[in-house]
């Protein structure tokens, strides 16, 4: 396997221009959508089959270094998790891991069962009603295999989205956190950079200026598949209990008739 490629999204540099969102739509030829009026500049409210990059806008009271209201911006994308829920859930093998460590959905193989949609802890995978397949960010699979970076990272005017080898980017990101902490952003932290952390680390990781929940991200995302064993035991246990109960109920009724 080649060195893992990653995208590092430094939200402290994001100016919310949404060039990444447009560049993504343009390169991947994703069609237009009816806008959602959310009360902020954010459009749309969540990922769709035509929106793979989404700039989220948050008004966070007290998040600024001087305790004022902060306007937090974050360019959200598929995280290409090292332990990907969608990849584990896919029954057809349509979702696969490329040699660069990214997760991609093969549109020719996908049968549209949507297990991946419910298996993603970040709500990234969306279902395309026209093609009947699941869609998500491809990490510009065609571009990274031809020596080009992803369209969003290329378009970003402030280098908020950086593309490169994962190990290099993590070192860079950690330095940036230190700088920001020195500037007064006490809550500056990395999200998903630790490959020993949740989901084995994210290949698209983030630098946040606040707690993950401020950005609507799960603090400790877990895959629904992890519950299968316990849930199965619970189901079997309940079935046994109900069965035993039913048997006992029949026996006591029989006893009553005789008596």
């Amino acid at each position, binding site marked *: 396997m080649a060195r893992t490629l990653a995208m590092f999204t430094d939200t402290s540099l994001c100016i919310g*221009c*949404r*060039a990444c*969102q*447009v*560049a993504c*739509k*343009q*390169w991947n030829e994703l069609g237009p959508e009816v806008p959602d009026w959310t009360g902020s500049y954010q459009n749309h409210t969540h990922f769709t089959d035509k929106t793979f990059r989404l700039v989220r806008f948050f008004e966070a009271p007290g998040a600024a270094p001087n305790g004022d209201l902060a306007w937090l911006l974050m360019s959200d994308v598929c995280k290409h998790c090292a332990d990907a829920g969608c990849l584990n859930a896919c029954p057809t*093998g349509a979702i*696969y891991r*490329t040699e660069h460590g990214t997760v*991609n959905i*093969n*549109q*020719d*193989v996908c049968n549209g069962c949507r297990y991946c949609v419910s298996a993603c802890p970040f709500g990234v995978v969306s279902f395309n009603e026209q093609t009947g397949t699941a869609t998500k960010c*491809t990490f510009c*699979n*065609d*571009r990274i*295999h*031809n020596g*080009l970076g992803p*369209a969003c990272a*290329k*378009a*970003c*005017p402030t280098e908020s989205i950086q593309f490169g080898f994962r190990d290099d980017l993590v070192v860079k990101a950690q330095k940036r956190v230190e700088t920001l902490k020195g500037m007064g952003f006490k809550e500056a932290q990395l999200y998903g950079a630790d490959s020993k952390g949740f989901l084995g680390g994210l290949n698209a990781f983030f630098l946040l200026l606040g707690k993950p929940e401020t950005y609507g991200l799960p603090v400790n995302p877990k895959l629904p598949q992890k519950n299968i064993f316990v849930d199965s035991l619970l189901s079997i246990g309940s079935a046994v209990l109900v069965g035993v109960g039913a048997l006992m109920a029949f026996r006591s009724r029989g006893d009553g008739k005789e008596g």
Partner: protein
Amino acid sequence: MSLSRRDFLKFGTASAAGVAAGTGVDWTPVEAATTALKIKEAKAVASVCPYCAVGCGQLIFAKDGKIIDIEGHPDTPHTLGRLCPKGAATIQLSNNPLRPTKALYRAPGAEKWEEKPLEWMYEQIAKRYYDTREKYFIEKEKNKDGQEVVVNRLEAIGSLGSACIDNEECYLLSKLNRTLGIVYHEHQARV
């Protein structure tokens, strides 16, 4: 069709084996197809973003006479290949089927707009420029001492430039305006 228990078992096992084998299918060629770059055989032409005066460099990729991709030109010294959201959507100028291709015209006093071809519109603009200039052009004027001096001035037309035009277009517009004698040579940023 009657199906014996033996047949059922036989076909059932065969199907199960097929399904089991199916999970081992090698998708490598299908995966390789997703890595084909659409701009690989396209012709790349360096250009300038048509929107604002920053003039970010763009690369226009064309294939079979059609623009298939427009992105930032990495060799541009002041942008290094980055674009703003508007610039990133430049391809819509040529490829968007929703763009109007006809001019809307409302005659003086008319209540409705009518569709006219673009050629007609260009002709009208040229014609009206010409007519107005013929009618209102001031060649000579008396100065404060009562002497006639050549002024070659046209006060009936005003020109409003735009921040969205680049140096070369500004130059052409100024040339045109000065040639016609237009003195109200204004710009959006000064209004």
